[in-house]
């Protein structure tokens, strides 16, 4: 029998190791002693690098990695489709479009407005995806095709908005998530909102277990299926909206991680949620380490790395597909 417990220790160890690597590499290499000294004195030159650049980056990585992995798991459970996740369903695209529309129309809401618009954009796509899915009787292929097209539509909208507003060139990063632009002052709101979303989705684990028996059986067990669906959409929109508004679209985390964890740990969402959160954080840290070191001194956008790994994983899962 698959034993989820034996995954916990290796995941925590990997996470610690990756945090260590992420904090020490960079243009200014730091030894363990340097690191301790820098952590102790935030005012020193190294202290500024650690506290203002590298630690925020690590926290963002943890938010995106665990947040998106948890979204992917919840959406896969909801649609009973292993290919569902915020990116393949177009939810990330919707979030990016929402954020960019606020930017280009110059509405004076600042980052709060961007995050709110991003959340709404994600939510709208969730609803459209659901209507599409219901119309095609939840055919697995139709769901993903529809989602990818919605994402494409939204991303075209983003490109159009950028083309029409020349000042926004830098926002091209929106489409290919990039942690080097991540503003430090939004760290706490992003951390809080992602944590709220993650905890909220964790609480749907039991419902998702029951739903894995099919809608009819779940209903006969007293599960309120529409409420579960609404909760998953809200949680995923909150997490996706927040992370996309700040870091841009980072695809495929939500695809790779839950599928990998499910293979090793079975189908119980109560254990899959925490394990996916841990594994997602590890995965994004690893990708970010690669993004920063592969072509050193050139730093790649994180989205490129996850895009390469993720699209291949998508094809592999698609070919060897089993029902969730």
């Amino acid at each position, binding site marked *: 029998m698959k034993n989820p417990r034996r995954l916990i220790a290796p995941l925590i160890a990997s996470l610690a190791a990756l945090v260590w690597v992420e904090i020490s590499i960079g243009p200014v290499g730091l030894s363990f002693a340097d690191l301790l000294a820098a952590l102790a004195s935030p005012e020193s030159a190294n202290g500024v690098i650690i506290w203002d650049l590298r630690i925020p980056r690590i926290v963002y990585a943890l938010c995106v990695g665990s947040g998106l992995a948890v979204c992917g798991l919840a959406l896969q459970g909801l649609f009973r489709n292993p290919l569902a996740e915020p990116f393949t369903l177009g939810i990330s695209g919707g979030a990016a479009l929402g954020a960019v529309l606020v930017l280009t129309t110059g509405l004076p809401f600042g980052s709060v407005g961007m995050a709110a618009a991003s959340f709404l954009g994600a939510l709208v796509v969730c609803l459209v995806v659901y209507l599409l899915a219901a119309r095609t009787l939840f055919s697995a292929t139709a769901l993903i095709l529809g989602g990818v097209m919605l994402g494409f539509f939204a991303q075209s909208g983003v490109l159009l908005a950028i083309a029409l507003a020349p000042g926004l060139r830098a926002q091209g990063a929106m489409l290919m998530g990039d942690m080097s632009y991540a503003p430090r002052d939004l760290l706490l709101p992003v951390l809080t909102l992602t944590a709220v979303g993650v905890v909220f989705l964790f609480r749907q684990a039991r419902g998702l277990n029951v739903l*894995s028996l099919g809608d009819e059986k779940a209903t*006969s067990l*007293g599960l309120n299926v529409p409420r579960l669906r609404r909760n998953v959409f809200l949680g995923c929109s909150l997490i996706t909206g927040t992370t996309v508004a700040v870091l841009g679209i980072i695809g495929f985390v939500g695809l790779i991680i839950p599928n990998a964890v499910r293979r090793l740990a079975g189908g119980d969402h109560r254990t899959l949620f925490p394990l996916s959160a841990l594994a997602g954080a590890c995965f994004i840290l690893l990708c970010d380490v690669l993004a920063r070191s592969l072509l050193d001194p050139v730093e790649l956008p994180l989205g490129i790395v996850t895009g390469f790994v993720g699209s291949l994983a998508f094809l592999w899962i698609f070919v060897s597909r089993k029902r969730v």
Partner: protein
Amino acid sequence: MLKLEHVVIEISGRYIVRDFSAGFPEKSLTCIIGPNGAGKSTLLRAVSNILPLTRGTLSFQSVDLQSLPARERARRLSYLPQTMQYAPSFPVSLFVELGGDPWGNEWEPAWKAEHLERCLHLCNVAHLKEREVATLSGGERQRVYLAQVIYQNTPVILLDEPSSFLDLKNIVLIENALARIRDDGRTILMVTHDLHTVRRIATQVIAMKDGTPFAVDTPAAVLNPSLIAELFDLDCETLRERFFK
């Protein structure tokens, strides 16, 4: 006593069940038989809260089931669909335990463990406890589904063709399990096409045709060649040759 009074179910303009009334006492196993499309499964789905009733009332021990919250209703009625669409990658023990979901955390852990063992043994799947449901054979799977329904521990149990597609040995295993829980004081309603099963374990038979009860009686009374022939629009001779030699 589970009571259906003047139940009507309309689905997109078609009346699938029309004016169905019947009562189902404790310690009874009622088999619902009848031709395909007679409305048997629809009736069962409506009783189990999946479809709304268009008209009529549904009560258990004088409590109106339609006005109960879904979870309260799931503590009174359990349902086994005709086909379970999905076999998630759960071990059998966890899968069966999902049947206890309507009870939240109300069960004592010790009783719960004992109850699980009892259900697994009753359906002869205790040896499969650690296996994943998706890896089981059709017969094993059906027995696991039944164990889940029994684990739900409801006074009323609704089963939609629990033994179709099964070999003789599995049919007998399931019949025995059902006879046991019937004698525990449950009310069982079961749609079936297997007239041998009806003869072996039913206490009451409802022959259903065109959305209404065509005959309601003991198995011995309903299982007579002329009634069955009329129910299925067969000629009496063919039927006699096949079933009543």
